[in-house]
């Protein structure tokens, strides 16, 4: 692909001349702008590798334009030109970050040589950024990202655990990557060629969960008009991932315990048992020991599950990985959303470092998706993430004006959070609940439940332009 050069000058003849002469000599595509304001418009819409801007222009002069460009993208390569060259102007431009300064009238060959050099700088910077990105990706493991000691330990555990055929229990807060970890265990195990079946336990109503897991025979209950294969059978030869196992009822726990002990299932309404060759990977964000104490979780089931535990650290426990993860998510979602690769402004990264991340990596993923969708410019700023630059660093905004009483305050803060979070989410997906659910990691039904609880209608977002 040819690089793009943007020439900014208030003289139309000059623009014409430079466009015609530079395009073939620099082998580049040339965009032109008749003013600083027009140049900023071009920059917002197009990726530009090099800018050649005149200093003396009415309204916004070249130095003002240079300052605005550098504020938006400190790496942008800009060459300034002027017919009224003075040492002061040249030094000022260079101090402001111009890469070169050319005085008019210039001889065409000199101009081409100096622009070639500037273009080379720009392409090198771009290549450098790409390589840095690639290096960071080397710190990832099966789509899990982290270079910190705690994450490296997790990767090591996954590798070890994957080689066995024992039951795995993954624990960690919401959004720490339990699903990715389960997939990693499966794909590194000897069962990798077999199916990986994931079941999000709390989203399936209890009376359906049993028939989903174990299947049923025709006539087992009123609507059972034909035989149905359960998910355990579908996972034959592979792994089944029981997400949020802490939420299943004691009745189902008893049946799963039987599968763990006997390696066999009995479809509803059937008298015969079926042997299954399935590895079980379970996960929970709850404290199962506490649940056992309260009598909500079977102790024997817990010990059968917790053969090989993998504990995923909360994001705040490994803040060193925040820039790495942010970069990874940015690259991943720019690709997914078909946008050119963006960067995060330094203040966004600073905010990320101090944010408590109650929702862990998933929370960051949502913020970054929002940023990619709404940011007009590169890099993505705090405002693009819907954050107020004044309060973003303290998190105070969520707490403003809350009642004194704890429960009432919490409820109100939750309501505010849900309204803002879900509002933005629906806006981003133009009211499409299925897409919104997928993006935020909830099942469609679960999201609809939350929307109902907070009285948020998806219809209102359907006609908005995302």
């Amino acid at each position, binding site marked *: 692909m040819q690089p793009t050069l943007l020439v900014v000058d208030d003289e139309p003849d000059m623009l014409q001349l430079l466009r015609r002469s530079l395009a073939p000599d620099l082998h580049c595509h040339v965009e032109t702008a008749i003013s600083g304001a027009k140049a900023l418009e071009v920059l917002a819409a197009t990726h530009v590798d090099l800018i050649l801007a005149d200093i003396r222009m009415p309204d916004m002069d070249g130095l003002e334009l240079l300052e605005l460009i550098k504020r938006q993208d400190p790496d942008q390569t800009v060459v300034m030109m002027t017919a009224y*060259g*003075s*040492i002061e102007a*040249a*030094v000022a431009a*260079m*101090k402001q970050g111009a890469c*070169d*300064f050319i*005085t008019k009238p210039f001889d065409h060959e000199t101009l081409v040589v100096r622009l070639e050099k500037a273009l080379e700088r720009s392409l090198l910077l771009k290549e450098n950024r790409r390589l840095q990105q690639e290096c960071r990706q080397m710190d990832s493991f099966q789509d899990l990202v982290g270079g910190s000691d705690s994450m490296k330990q997790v990767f090591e555990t996954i590798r070890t655990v994957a080689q066995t055929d024992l039951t795995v229990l993954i624990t960690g807060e919401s959004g720490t990557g339990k699903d990715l970890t389960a997939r990693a265990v499966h794909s590194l195990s000897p069962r990798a060629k077999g199916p990986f079946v994931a079941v999000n336990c709390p989203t399936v109503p209890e009376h359906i969960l049993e028939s989903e897991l174990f299947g049923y025979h025709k006539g087992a209950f009123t609507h059972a008009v034909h035989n149905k294969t359960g998910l355990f059978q579908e996972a034959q030869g592979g792994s089944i991932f029981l997400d949020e196992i802490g939420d299943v009822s004691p009745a189902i726990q008893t049946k799963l315990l039987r599968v763990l002990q006997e390696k066999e299932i009995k479809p509803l309404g059937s008298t015969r048992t079926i042997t299954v060759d399935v590895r079980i990977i379970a996960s929970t964000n709850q404290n199962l020991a506490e649940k056992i104490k309260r009598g909500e979780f079977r102790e024997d089931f817990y010990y059968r599950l917790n053969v090989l535990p993998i504990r995923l650290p909360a994001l705040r426990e490994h803040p060193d990985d925040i820039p790495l993860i942010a970069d990874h998510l940015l690259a991943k979602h720019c690709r997914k959303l078909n946008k050119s690769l963006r960067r995060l402004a330094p203040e966004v990264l600073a905010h990320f470092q101090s944010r408590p991340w109650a929702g862990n990596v998933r929370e960051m993923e949502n913020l970054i998706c929002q940023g990619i969708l709404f940011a007009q410019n590169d890099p993505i700023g705090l405002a693009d993430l819907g954050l107020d630059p004044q309060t973003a660093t303290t998190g105070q905004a969520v707490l403003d004006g809350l009642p004194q009483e704890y429960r009432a305050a919490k409820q109100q803060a939750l309501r505010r959070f849900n309204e803002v979070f879900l509002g933005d989410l629906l806006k981003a997906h133009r009211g499409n609940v299925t897409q919104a659910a997928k993006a935020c990691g909830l099942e469609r039904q679960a999201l609809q439940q939350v929307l109902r609880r907070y009285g948020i209608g998806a219809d209102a977002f359907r006609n908005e332009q995302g």
Partner: protein
Amino acid sequence: MESFRILVVDDELDFTETIVNRLKKRHLLAEGVGSGEAALEALREAVFDVVLLDIKMPGGMDGIDVLREIKRLQPEAEVILLTGHASIETSIEGMKLGAFDYLLKPIRFDELLDKLSAAFKKKASLGRPSLP
């Protein structure tokens, strides 16, 4: 401001002496040398925070070459270029090589102090270098 070290490089010895004395009166640590070669020797011996470098010193090393060598020896040193009759091209070249700023001779002392304090500010924000 007192703890920053300044090296003044100019072949006009009267000029060098005057500047060094006036800086010392302001309780600044300043030293003067009369050529590019002497400047590089001084920089091999000690760490300087700011170098005031005359870019046109006939008879010796070219000012731009001296600047290039200063940046190689002590990349953290901020260089302010001085000259009586420089071309735009030299000033651009100097800035490209990493000079911090430019002063035209005859210099105004308060202007020099402004530029020095801007250079000190930059150094302070980046942290002081230590002796090798």
